């Protein structure tokens, strides 16, 4: 190259200005975007983003309160099953269960995450983070495994799981979660 016309950057490979101008001229074609397409895309944005502002919040709260009730009910059920000792009549269990109440809170705390994890639908929005693929409220190598398994049925993988933002959901996203979880 006999001329250099990009002194503004610390870039080593340069091109003649005449070529740069010609390339720019070659690619200065402009596609006419019909206003109907603009409107369509913006209407879709309004449709999708509006619920986040106004409508989705109450329904999300309701949805989460519903989940909370369900989880609490499951935890109580698990707790009551753990109190049941084999070979004892049900009336005796009930009698024994009453004084055991102080321990029940701790057991409920332990039981709740297990129930939540088992019941969490695979496509449910991540409660903890977008990368929490398996819904266990932590981002770890298990999420990478979970995503790898879900990739066996790519049609059921949500678009939001394109963690590395390369336009496809593939092995690269699994590697991305693995990297992030190691860093965490």
């Amino acid at each position, binding site marked *: *190259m*006999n*001329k250099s016309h990009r002194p503004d*950057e610390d*870039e*080593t*490979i340069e*091109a*003649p200005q*005449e*070529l*740069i101008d*010609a*390339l*720019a*001229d*070659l*690619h200065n*074609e*402009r*596609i*006419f*975007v*019909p*206003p109907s*397409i*603009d*409107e*369509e*895309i*913006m209407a*879709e*944005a*309004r449709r*999708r*983003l*509006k*619920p*986040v*502002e*106004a409508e989705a919040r109450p329904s999300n709260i309701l949805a989460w309160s519903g989940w909370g009730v369900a989880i609490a009910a499951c935890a109580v059920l698990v707790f009551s099953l753990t109190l049941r000792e084999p070979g004892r009549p049900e009336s005796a269990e009930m009698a024994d269960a009453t004084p055991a109440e102080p321990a029940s809170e701790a057991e409920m705390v332990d039981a709740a995450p297990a129930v939540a994890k088992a019941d969490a639908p695979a496509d449910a929005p991540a409660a903890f983070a*977008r990368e929490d693929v398996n819904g266990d409220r932590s981002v770890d190598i298990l999420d990478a495994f979970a995503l790898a398994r879900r990739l066996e049925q790519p049609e059921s993988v949500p*678009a*939001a799981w*394109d963690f590395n*933002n*390369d*336009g*496809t959901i593939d092995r690269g996203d699994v590697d991305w979660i693995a990297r992030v979880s190691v860093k965490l």
Partner: protein
Amino acid sequence: MVESLQTSGKVEHEPQSDSRGDRELIDAVNRGDSAAFDVLYLRHRDWVVNLAFRFTRDRDLALDVLQETFLYFLKKFPGFELTAKLTTFFYPAVRNLSLTALKKARRYQSDEEISEHVVAPPEAAPVESQREQLAAVMAELSEEHREVLLLRFVEGMKMGEIAQTMGIPTGTVKSRLHNALTVLRKDERTRKFFGK
């Protein structure tokens, strides 16, 4: 062949008056502000559709890719975090969607229709202008070399940005750029740009 092109359409609410940067707008969209999304759309629409056209060489496909790209972008909200320039985010999406659209379109085309889109070999095409000669040489470059050249000298990206955008090492960017320029320098149709 390719339809004649026109200047991009202007809609009533042009984003020029909005001084917020992409990052601020994305924060607003994450809070559910659809007007901020409109500004982002109008700001990047032409870049996206022209890039799509560069890949597809078909106006209708480019418009399809434009819509799909912004729907894909929209699905990232809430929770989207901008870690680089927004064009760096858009580029791989536009490229993949364009190539997919092209494959689908070709699946339904007859051989005759496809042949209309194939670039004629340089010796078959009557050479009319310097511009056409450059276009012919560019068409003969591999897609990887052509893209690096255009991202560097038409889009004005830095080496590191190109590397990030294309998902390749900076060394590979430099190597492709060097090779592409060597081809242009050696080809008799484009040698004149280098002063000889």
